[in-house]
């Protein structure tokens, strides 16, 4: 079978690798963006000088030929689903038996005046990074619009080069539509600690051009004019599917797929950022533009294509990020505002850079989520507890086993347990400190 994959991001490449593992199908990956797969989430580290561009490639260049995965750098302009043919911008025509659409996202723009000026852009593609680099020469100030994960990355990028950043955030505290108030406040403080000009409750109204058609200033929702040579629009992304509109392919927000990641057209699948689940699993969104979901979809679709039809099951929600110097890990369900049926146990270090939050059901005591800032927890163990609906007291007594911080780090699980005891009048004690042997025991305990 001849499989063609559109897009060489993590979704498409994971699919290609797993199809190769499971079959002898011919595999062709087409990308307009780059010759080789790279880690999109690490673009910032190239700008900051931590990594070279080639360091973003998770596989050496010989990997693809060795695994008989053909790569093609081309822009696909038209898909003829009836004749199973793709047309590229340079006039090539490619045929497929099975097509996987993994075309990713594009940065959102919400119709602001001046949003298409030179020096105004998002950060998603490799080319965005190149453009950022071009605009950074002699840049006096950058304005970043949108308080999300890419926004804070962009702020950190400019900051690393000593370029002053004004960070416009619509919300009253950074990312508080996702983070609970305490965590959000902690990150907001940390942003200020780094000397970023953080403007909360502030939106973009307009971008002003100079005589050359380059941006020269923004006007905020408060009417203030801030002069800047660059405007980063980091207000989310949406599926990159425009070239597929006006075809029989069913498209809503993204390419509509069922739980097998099949589109409405036979032998055509969609995965990653560009896919929209018709019936997302409980608690999940129809479009999830994130690395982990894309990777899981790639593996799932590979199974299906190789004769083992597999439902897309992303499992328990997890995510991670790093806000300047504070790492963030989340497992399960931590809503920004704790609902009445949920109890939340929140411990924060006085240094304002570490916190542990565990949410559990008020009535049954079942643990439903973990939120960590500046402290690392074991994904596998948290996932196990959440899947099995472990009781908060079981979790607390074994919390030491969940800690994944480097050796010699002070551990704070005792304080979390003490906090719980003070609040409930219970007298729990931490059964174990972290460590591998303890982890095994914990798994054993939890599976009994």
């Amino acid at each position: 079978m001849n499989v063609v994959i559109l897009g060489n991001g993590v979704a498409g490449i994971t699919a290609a690798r797993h199809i190769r593992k499971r079959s002898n199908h011919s595999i062709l990956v087409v990308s307009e963006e780059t010759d080789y797969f790279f880690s999109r989430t690490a673009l910032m580290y190239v700008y900051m000088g931590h990594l070279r561009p080639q360091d973003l490639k998770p596989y050496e260049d010989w990997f693809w030929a060795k695994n008989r995965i053909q790569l093609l750098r081309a822009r696909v302009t038209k898909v003829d689903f009836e004749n199973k043919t793709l047309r590229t911008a340079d006039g090539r025509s490619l045929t497929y038996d099975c097509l996987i659409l993994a075309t990713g996202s594009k940065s959102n723009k919400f119709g602001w005046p001046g949003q298409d000026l030179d020096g105004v852009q998002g950060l998603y593609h490799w080319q965005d990074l190149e453009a950022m680099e071009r605009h950074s020469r002699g840049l006096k100030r950058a304005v970043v619009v949108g308080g999300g994960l890419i926004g804070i990355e962009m702020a950190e990028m400019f900051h690393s080069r000593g370029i002053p950043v004004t960070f416009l955030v619509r919300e009253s505290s950074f990312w508080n539509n996702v983070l609970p108030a305490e965590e959000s406040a902690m990150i907001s403080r940390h942003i200020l600690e780094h000397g970023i000009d953080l403007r909360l409750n502030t939106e973009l109204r307009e971008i002003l051009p100079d005589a050359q058609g380059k941006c020269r200033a923004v006007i905020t929702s408060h009417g203030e004019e801030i002069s800047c040579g660059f405007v980063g629009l980091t207000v989310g992304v949406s599926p990159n599917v425009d070239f597929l509109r006006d075809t029989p392919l069913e498209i809503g927000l993204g390419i509509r797929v069922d739980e097998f990641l099949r589109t409405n057209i036979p032998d055509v699948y969609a995965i990653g950022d560009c896919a929209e689940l018709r019936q997302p699993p409980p608690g999940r969104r129809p479009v999830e533009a994130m690395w982990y979901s894309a990777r899981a979809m790639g593996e799932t679709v590979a199974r299906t294509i190789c004769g083992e039809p597999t439902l897309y099951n992303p499992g328990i929600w997890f995510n991670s990020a790093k806000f300047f110097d504070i790492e963030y890990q989340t497992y399960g369900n931590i809503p920004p505002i704790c609902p009445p049926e949920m109890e939340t146990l929140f411990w924060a270090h006085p240094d304002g850079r570490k916190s542990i939050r565990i949410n559990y059901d008020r009535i049954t005591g079942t643990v439903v989520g973990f939120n960590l800032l500046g402290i690392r927890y074991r994904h596998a163990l948290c996932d196990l507890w959440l899947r099995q609906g472990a009781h908060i007291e079981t979790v607390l007594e074994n919390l030491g086993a969940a800690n994944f911080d480097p050796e010699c780090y002070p551990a704070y699980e005792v304080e979390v347990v003490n906090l719980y005891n003070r609040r409930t009048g219970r007298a729990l004690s931490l059964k174990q400190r972290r460590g591998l042997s303890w982890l095994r025991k914990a798994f054993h305990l939890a599976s009994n």
Partner: protein
Amino acid sequence: MQDFSLSIAQPAPAFTPWRQKVALSLGAVGVLLLLIAWAAGKVLAPLPVLIASFSLMATGIWLFVREAYLKHPSGIRNNGTWFRSLTARGPWGWALGVLITGFYVCLYWFSQYLHGLIALFTPLSEALRHRPADQWFVYGTLYTVAVLLMGVKFFFKYRHNAYQRLRTVSVVFFQLCFAWLLPSLLVRLQQPELYFSYFWPLSYYQGTPMAYRSYLNSDLGLFYFFFGLVMFFIGTPVLTYFFGKRWYCSWICGCGGLAETAGDPFRHLSDKRLRAWKIERWMIHGVLAFVVLMTALLWINVATGSRVLQQFSEAFYKTYAFLIGATFSGVVGVGFYPLLGSRVWCRFGCPMAAWLGIWQRKKSRFRITTNGGLCISCGNCSAYCEMGIDVRAYAQRGEDVVRASCVGCGICSAVCPRGVLRLEG
């Protein structure tokens, strides 16, 4: 094939605030004083010049630490690493490489050109050891100063990381006390100059009959010889079983100490390709076989009363000393820091590392574990692995890293932005 798609044609010049430039300049003047003494071949006022040189270097480094690290919240600060000439194999990197390489060449083979430096260090040597300096005292002192000062820099660069703090205190302590003060005091007390932080086969002389004969004169020498044997046959397997080879390579060893401190700005220059790993395995085990054969031949020669091998074993020893002892571990191992990274010797050459590595891979609790599915394949772990291990290849598959070469420095875990890696053992 050249990969044009992933290139930024002209990255903007690195941003270095003026205070950091002043700090670097002060340190450079300190180095310049040493270079003047080296070039002039004599020194007028050795003690003041030496004090001035070390003070300038210390001040420069301290100012740099303050500006680059202490003025900012603690965290990973690798900004601009690949943009700076010194740390990205630019002209300054090459110049530094040539300078250090030149120093090592003089040290081993042309010590007559080091008279100026030797004179400069003589007052210190007299005070410490009651004898004039020689090129080895100059070397040992410069080495220790480098570990100490750059250790301070490293300590504050990673001040948020308890593992790095402890480890740095340890390597600096062992270099300062066991590889500099103690040997100097032994010399002062007319005892053999012994380095308790090195063992055969890294210090290849220690296991030879010549060394044994020289140690016979003192109890301490004899103790040292058997201490080395015990460390090789019992200490290494046992300690490596519990802690991995890091108990030595990144906590005690002087070569490791220099790599972890002075070499830290160059750690990312190690070759991560699969090809390099293949070369590594052949070379390092080849050197181990070489040193075992060399030592065995010397002892066989003694046992047979020099009748069978005659001059051959001696010549073999000299070949090892020239090729491995001097050229590989010194000239290439340290001289090429700014070009090939800080652990070239430890990775490709050190027979002690080979021996530790065999135990680490076959029989050790030590490993780097990965955290579920959190890896985003960013590549920071691989880039900053001084041993050139492609850590990401394991992390993105969720596999434990069990590698003979891993020295357990813990930097992969430190630079990981998603909390994926943890040293365990």
